[in-house]
């Protein structure tokens, strides 16, 4: 595993597109949370001070990062994998001695590493924003919703594994990114409308995006947001999908002539 990660790191460290996209993700997070407090729709402030306080800040920040910015990470994974097909380096890596299994494993370790690194960034932001906005007398609740952080990691890993399957399927960056966004935004939502309701929650995009639920529900329905926790049932389904996506990526690669 260390060997594979070392190789992947050598491939991406000098790669400027990678640095730009990761930078974009971090800057987006930063800008959003700096401006969130002052964000207004008319006179309505959707992000009240309360939302940026412990413990809700864990939930709110991971939700926004998952919904708004994780697609950037998906694009990064798609670019990194389709590059290997475009440059035919996937073929070179294999004739140099890497098995197809390890080709898929290397990218899996890479996407997990990216997901964990981004989770740590998000956690750090949440911590700083929380400390900044929470009055001293509420500090006892600081870790109350911290489980949204591992939930965010699970959401990110599942989404990136999904992106990696698309990349192995379509092999060209442009068409892969288009199909990935179309699937999540259009194709699956339409499909979900056509199938029996009991299956809807088992669809991949639906379950991945349901791990961290819309946070304002519990604010609207009751004043106590304390009960809100990550949706572990969706987390479990997404975990299953993660294994499925990686397995399918391997099967695709195994059968393909390069």
């Amino acid at each position, binding site marked *: 595993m260390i060997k594979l990660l070392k190789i992947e790191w050598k491939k991406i460290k000098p*790669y400027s597109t990678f640095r730009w996209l990761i930078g974009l993700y971090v800057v987006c997070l930063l800008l959003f949370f700096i401006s969130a407090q002052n964000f207004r729709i008319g006179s309505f402030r959707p992000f009240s001070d309360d939302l940026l306080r412990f413990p809700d800040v864990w939930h709110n920040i991971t939700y926004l990062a998952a919904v708004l910015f994780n697609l950037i990470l998906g694009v990064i994974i798609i670019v990194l994998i389709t590059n290997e097909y475009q440059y035919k380096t996937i073929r070179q890596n294999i004739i140099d001695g890497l098995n197809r299994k390890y080709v898929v494993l290397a990218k899996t370790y890479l996407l997990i590493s990216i997901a964990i690194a981004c989770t740590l960034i998000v956690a750090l932001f949440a911590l700083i924003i929380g400390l900044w906005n929470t009055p001293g007398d509420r500090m006892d609740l600081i870790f109350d919703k911290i489980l949204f952080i591992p939930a965010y990691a699970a959401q990110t890993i599942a989404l990136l594994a999904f992106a990696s399957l698309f990349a192995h399927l379509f092999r060209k960056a442009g068409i892969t990114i288009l199909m990935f966004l179309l699937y999540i935004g259009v194709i699956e939502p339409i499909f979900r409308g056509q199938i029996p309701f009991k299956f809807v929650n088992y669809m991949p995009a639906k379950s991945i995006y349901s791990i961290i639920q819309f946070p304002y529900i519990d604010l609207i329905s009751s004043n106590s947001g304390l009960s809100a926790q990550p949706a572990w049932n969706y987390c479990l389904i997404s975990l299953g999908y993660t294994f499925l996506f990686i397995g399918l990526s391997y099967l695709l690669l195994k059968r393909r002539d390069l």
Partner: protein
Amino acid sequence: MENVLNISALVKQYGRITAVNNLSMKVPEASVFGILGPNGSGKTTTLSIILGIVNADSGYFDWFDGLNASESRMNIGSLLEKPNFYPYLTAVENLKITADIKEIPYTNIAEVLDTVSLLDRKDSKFSTFSTGMKQRLGIANALLANPDVLVLDEPTNGLDPQGISDIRQIIIALGDSGKTIILASHLLDEVEKVCSHVAVIKKGKLLASGPVADALNAEGKIVLAADNLSQLSSFLSKHYNISKIEKEDDKLVIPMGTLYPAEINQKLSKAGIYLKHLSIRQKSLESQFLELTADDDD
């Protein structure tokens, strides 16, 4: 170990096109084995199959007496078709990735770059390289792990005459040092200069194989002409055991075999047939190759 590679009845079809058609061959250890064939004859497909990046439809191959492609690739240095590297990485960075894959230290990198005369461009990005330099890096990459077997697909493609000569010298030296080299080429001249063994393939079929001298045996011919060609022809077939007399314009062409031109001339003049043309045509390997691979729509 007698054979480094055994290929048996390999078949690969792309739609209706049979790229490799029931191909069998054995590559002896320490040979420089040329796979010779015109463009599109299935050379690269065959190499792709034995390196495990293309799946054969049927047939069998093994390396080093029983290993499959993935078990043996660590001990094989390959350059297949075009050299494929990360364009945004430098020559050294690209070779470091190969070194990591092959689990070898970086100590060889400078040496192999020097071998292919790329040392002064070691920190340039691959994308800035010319075609010939890319090809050189591909060869350096194949040499990197000092493997027992090298698989080189058209290694002199895109090189200038000096580069071609350099690379051939490298291959010859490696062959002399006891390494097995499998070299695909459409250049007969290259195979003739570099290889000890050859397999000639066309449309995925094996046409001839064996040591270069046998497989491409160059047969001489005698060309004769006289005023009366039919008289000459009947005399020749009567007095000599000649399998085939060919007519070329106003000349006759017969296989030389063990015949001796001076002796024929003497006999003919005694019989009152005077030659106005007598010459020996040493058949070039080139025409031999063209003949071997000529279109036969049977």
